[in-house]
């Protein structure tokens, strides 16, 4: 019986930063052998970004990098050197998939673009993922996911009003695109198994991310309406938002909740001890039309309650509610713990380090974090000596020539 879904699948992984590595991580954590090809001359930016083990910066000390590169091996090749290209081409027959996330011209410069690679390996599956895709006037735009989140419309949907935008944290679209690129890659693998045909996948992170805005785009095309920031206003629920509860240990606590019906509202008032309320709030329409008054009423009442206790009592009467959790709360969350979301893995340089796990669980072939992320070039000897059967003298020579670097 198979242990992992992708036992025996091999991936050569030129990707860096987040989208590419998160994509290939789906394969790696589910059993594929993934070799990250990095170089000291072109360091993955995430190796130089926090959080750091013991808060100390270092290329092998970044948990940002480590999080997205579990279950993978790592070698270093300076692709600007012809000998590095030769080594890559020796690895190519081993691979089912080549993935890369440079701006489009990079692989063409190295003559390692799909046209070159398919001539050598016709059934190769190749994924190129970049900001705006391999074609079109803006294809060489070199951005990060935080900029793509602005360009792809998400920043404009976040805020209290048009004059008070508050963007989503981080590189938001970097965490939309990988699920789409993973779908394309895995389905392409299965298609190749059935038909023998490989193919090329040109993934624009922009175009994938826009699927998370589809209703607003279709609306604009049909009505000209431009969706903007709405605070927490909803056309379906009232109340709907986050309300400050009693502080705990000197820290603010907020409760997110959504009330879907008048019955739920009545149940919620009971839970809150039937505080004197405004008759305008009795109906859904009344609550929607008097949203500001409703929110100040709740702000006043909920300040007297603890968020965790209200969560339990509101959920018991069928009202959707949960505390607004900060990043420390997440690690104490019993539900994430029960799903076995958090893991400590023993990294070769960092020692025991905190990793996030999978967001899915398979019953028969469950994936898991099979190993911590590789240190830079950690598997040079293993891959070059093992897979390519090079002698240690040859490998040493390549290191001295800074080909393996």
């Amino acid at each position, binding site marked *: 019986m198979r242990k992992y879904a992708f036992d025996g699948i091999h991936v050569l992984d030129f990707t860096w930063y987040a989208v590419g590595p998160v994509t290939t991580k789906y394969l790696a954590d589910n059993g594929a052998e993934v070799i990250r090809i990095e170089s000291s001359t072109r360091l993955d930016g995430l190796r130089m970004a*926090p959080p750091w083990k013991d808060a100390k910066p270092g290329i092998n000390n970044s948990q940002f990098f480590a999080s997205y590169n579990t279950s993978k091996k790592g070698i270093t090749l300076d692709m600007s050197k012809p000998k590095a290209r030769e080594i890559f081409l020796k690895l190519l027959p081993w691979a089912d998939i080549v993935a890369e996330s440079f701006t489009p011209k990079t692989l063409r410069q190295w003559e390692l673009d799909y046209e070159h690679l398919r001539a050598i390996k016709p059934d190769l599956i190749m994924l190129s993922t970049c900001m705006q895709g391999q074609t079109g006037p803006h294809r060489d735009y070199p951005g990060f996911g935080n900029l793509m989140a*602005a360009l792809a419309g998400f920043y404009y949907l976040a805020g209290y009003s048009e004059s008070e935008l508050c963007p989503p944290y981080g590189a938001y679209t970097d965490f939309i695109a990988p699920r789409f690129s993973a779908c394309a890659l895995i389905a392409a693998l299965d298609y190749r198994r059935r038909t023998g045909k490989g193919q090329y996948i040109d993934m624009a992170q922009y175009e994938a991310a826009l699927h998370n805005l589809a209703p*607003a785009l279709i609306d604009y095309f049909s009505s000209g309406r431009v969706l903007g920031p709405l605070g927490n206003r909803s056309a379906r629920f009232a109340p709907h938002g986050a309300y*400050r509860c009693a502080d705990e240990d000197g820290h603010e606590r907020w409760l997110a*909740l959504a009330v879907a019906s008048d019955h739920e509202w009545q149940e919620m008032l009971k839970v809150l001890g039937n505080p004197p309320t405004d008759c305008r709030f009795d109906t859904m329409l009344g609550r929607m039309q008097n949203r500001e008054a409703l929110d100040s009423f709740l702000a006043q009442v909920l300040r007297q309650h603890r968020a965790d206790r209200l969560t339990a009592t509101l959920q018991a009467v069928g009202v959707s509610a949960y505390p607004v959790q900060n990043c420390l709360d*997440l690690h104490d969350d019993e*539900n994430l713990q029960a799903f076995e979301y958090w893991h400590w893995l023993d990294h070769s340089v960092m020692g025991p380090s905190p990793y*996030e796990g999978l967001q*899915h669980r398979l019953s028969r072939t469950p994936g898991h974090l099979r190993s911590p992320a590789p240190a830079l070039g950690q598997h040079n000897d293993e891959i070059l000596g093992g897979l390519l059967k090079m002698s240690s003298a040859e490998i040493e020579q390549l290191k001295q020539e800074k080909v393996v670097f």
Partner: protein
Amino acid sequence: MGSELLKGFRMLDLTDEKGALCGKIFADMGADVIKVEPPAGCSTRTIPPFLDDLPGPDRSLYAIAYHAGKRSVTLNLDSADGRALFRKLADTADFLVESFPLDYMNERGLGYEELSRSNPRLIYTSITPFGDRGPASRYRAADIVSWAAGGMMYLMGEEGKPPLELSLPQAGLHAGAEAAVASLIAHYPRELDGVGQHIVIDMQACVVSTLMNEQAMPLLHGDYLRRSGIYTGAIGGRRKTIFRCKDGYISGLLAGGAYLPSTNAIIDWMKEEQAAPEWLAQPGGLKALTPAGFMNATEADFRELEMAEEAFERFLMTKTKAEIWQNILRRRILAAPVATVADIAQDPHLAARGYFVKIDHPHLDRELTFPGAFAKMSVTPVGPAGPSPQLGQHNHEVYCELLGLAPELLVQLRAIGAI
């Protein structure tokens, strides 16, 4: 229409807004996705806004967007006849995805154990708000509640004011896309040995996975991030990320490190247009700008950066998003317009790639424009496979043509409320 990629595979889609995107991705990849809805329709059909602002079961833009290319049948799982019919349908399926409360399908004898007994190939994916094992496994979660539980909400908004969600709720979309990936992960070995499996998706974890490097920060650096409006809260200084311009906003950052060449390009641009204050125009004018980022910056350096940000915003206020975007592209500046859906709809780059596609919706007497292929695949192009179905539009096609029920029986099943 219809991709070759997953042609011949069938998915039964029993999700609401916690998973509609899963079936949409499968339909885009060519699978036959049958949306199994209660007789009154899936709750997604009630999500505003509606086409032409006319509410109706076939006019929710959310339902239109995320059910395109699926077929729709009605089925009452609370009726024994409905359940018997569902079992027949499940025997023809390769995939099933659902987002009911935890016990719902089991209580009706339609859990993985039961359905896989007659169809061992079945891949059965359950989307849950909080997983299936923790104390909240039976909690309800509107999208905003998942956004809060997963930590993203805490990071959006101004300090002291309520945390925010996006005006187009996102948690269910992340869960739906994760369900699509996980279903395909199980598909690969199933095609080798013929055995399916049960999958649980944790929606809360899906939101946590969008927090980038922040989730491990408190364990390694001893503190957690607070929301800070338009400022980054990242280590090494509070920096402005959104600037006003003539007709909207621009996102960018004046910083060292990876942003150093871009910041220098901005200063050069301001110099060219005589918009850089004298102190900024001098070589080394911004002392905080080093390849190492802000690691060694002093209070005075940060004050200088703030002054530079003010000068940059004054400069941007003389220009439109479109003018600035042209300069961003030409000068390789790390910045981007804060685009609206109108800007995106008119983006010449997307037009050159033929991204948006028109899909005729005869029952609405309209052609609607959709986001196109999520990726360009050279051998098996993917993309929207057809219009969004009317409620129960494919009852005859699925029940009579696929399952072989006599048309009279269909009438009878409808009369007794089974479909």
